[in-house]
């Protein structure tokens, strides 16, 4: 089973700071991590390889600093890694990002493409399905578990709001995974030492069959008009009360607001 895993380097969101004046993100000096859902994707790929054999190839589009992330993924056990990096890619929205990723994926024959459900920075959950459409292969989002892989058929569990679906889909296919799908293993020192020096592939715009009109800010159908922080809400007075008074206050409050009780 040949697997492509899509991975994105993201800022450690809890530490993100925003320029109060401009509302722009301060990315300088912000530690980065591999998007959590993508580590799940890598782990799932490793488990599938252990069972069904094959090759795992990770792809990321991003700045050259994303090489560090790919090296870490080598240490985790992937077989090949490709960085798509070019000034012309900067500012791509999900449509353009997916278009670029799909053009790189098209150069290979994969049975399965695994994307994370959602990146914790852009938060759109759109790239996986869009890549599948550009590759003209079926996809299932919100995959909670891969049950098995037989005769080119993949059986997965999809997690919807109120129900779990068991779905069969023929490969090649794409899935987007939830963090329930696999629990990333710990890396051992030996692998970090031995594998993180493996060579990385690097592709630029010229290596791909994409037109400048379809990538970067210019090729992105969506434009970010402005960014801002949510205005701080007004503080309400807080009350420190003993439990009995507190319960009474709450019930009085509910009654005053419309009498649910």
């Amino acid at each position, binding site marked *: 089973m040949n697997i492509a895993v899509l991975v994105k380097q993201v800022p450690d969101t809890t530490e993100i700071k925003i320029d109060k004046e401009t509302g722009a993100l301060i990315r300088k000096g912000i530690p980065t991590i591999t998007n959590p859902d993508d580590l799940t994707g890598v782990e799932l790929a490793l488990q599938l390889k252990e069972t069904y054999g094959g090759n795992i190839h990770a792809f990321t589009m991003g700045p050259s600093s994303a090489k560090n992330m790919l090296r870490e993924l080598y240490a985790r056990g992937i077989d090949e890694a490709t960085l798509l990096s070019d000034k012309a890619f900067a500012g791509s929205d999900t449509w353009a990002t*997916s278009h670029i990723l799909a053009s790189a994926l098209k150069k290979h024959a994969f049975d399965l493409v695994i994307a994370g459900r959602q990146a914790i920075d852009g938060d759109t959950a759109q790239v996986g399905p869009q890549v599948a459409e550009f590759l003209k292969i079926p996809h299932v989002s919100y995959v909670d578990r891969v049950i098995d892989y037989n005769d080119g058929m993949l059986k997965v569990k999809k997690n919807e709001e109120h129900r779990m679906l068991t779905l069969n889909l023929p490969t090649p296919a794409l899935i987007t995974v939830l963090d329930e799908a696999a629990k990333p293993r710990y890396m051992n020192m030996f692998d970090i030492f031995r594998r993180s020096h493996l060579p990385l592939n690097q592709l630029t715009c010229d290596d791909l069959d994409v037109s400048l009109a379809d990538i970067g800010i210019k090729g992105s*159908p*969506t434009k970010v008009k402005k960014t801002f922080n949510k205005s701080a809400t007004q503080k309400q007075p807080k009350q420190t009360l003993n439990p009995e008074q507190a319960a009474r206050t709450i019930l009085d409050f509910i009654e005053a607001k419309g009498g649910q009780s």
Partner: protein
Amino acid sequence: MKYTDGNNCFVYIDHDEGTINQVSLELLTEAKHLMKRLKAPEKVVAIWLGTFTDDILKMLGDYGADHIITCEREDLNQYDVMKHTTVISEMIDAYHPQSMLIGGTVKGRELAPRISARVHTGLTADATQIDLDGETHHLAITRPAFGGNLYATIITPDHFPQMATIRPGVFEAKTFGHTSLPTQETFQYDKALHSPIEVMAIEEKDTKRTNIADAKLIVSAGRGVKNCLNLVSDVAAHLNGEVASSRALVDGGIMSKNHQVGQTGHTVRPSLYIACGISGAVQHTAGMDKSDTIIAINTDENAPIFDVADLGIVGDAQAILKQLQKQLDA
């Protein structure tokens, strides 16, 4: 696809064998408000795939649809991402809508990106507010990113339809009391549709379907009450409410995912939200700060949850819930 003669807003109606998902009604209402604000008002067009009835026509009209385009094929009664992408993209090619809104459910978030890639247009995820941009009257769509730490306003100036997904509960569904029924037209699509994706089994998750997105009163549990969840459910039951939770308890496997409120859970807007032992991380408040009224109980007087609360009580939630139980029983 480029804009040609489109003059309407498509709203995808998400339904399960005819049972309409509430979020689609919320979107019809919001689309109606939006279209009214345009200089040259446009039509709200509901998109219906599958078997259609007069009751559905009336209901969609009540919530804001001016016109309904149906593709009444039995093989569309059940959602399938491949078939639905094909039919909806064909409809877009045929009618050139200005904009299209899709509920941000699991289905919608799977389907909308696929459509946007096929018809080559922009898609804004998880809109929380939709405005009209200056003179151009493009949709200016505001959404949270970075786990709710940042908001961005996004426009799709040169591609159509301008697409957005919207989570359940972000907008309110309201009836307009129409005097006439919406008009209806059939989109003839006769080609064979097949999907390689086969549904093998469906399991309902909970015996009792939690639907916190529609609940009027929610008692929500955070890590601070993880040892007294029975008290939380008991008080919720006394108040005829539903139990919800923060992600901390979902990650901990104590509550199921469909109870989760917040950025990566449900967006709720009940009349009353009681947050017990929840710190109030922005990812949590992003999903509940539109509640009409919020009560917060927390031992830490500096907990950020108090910033969004209408009534803040500093104290031990367990003891207070016990008292509530007692006083409600009395």
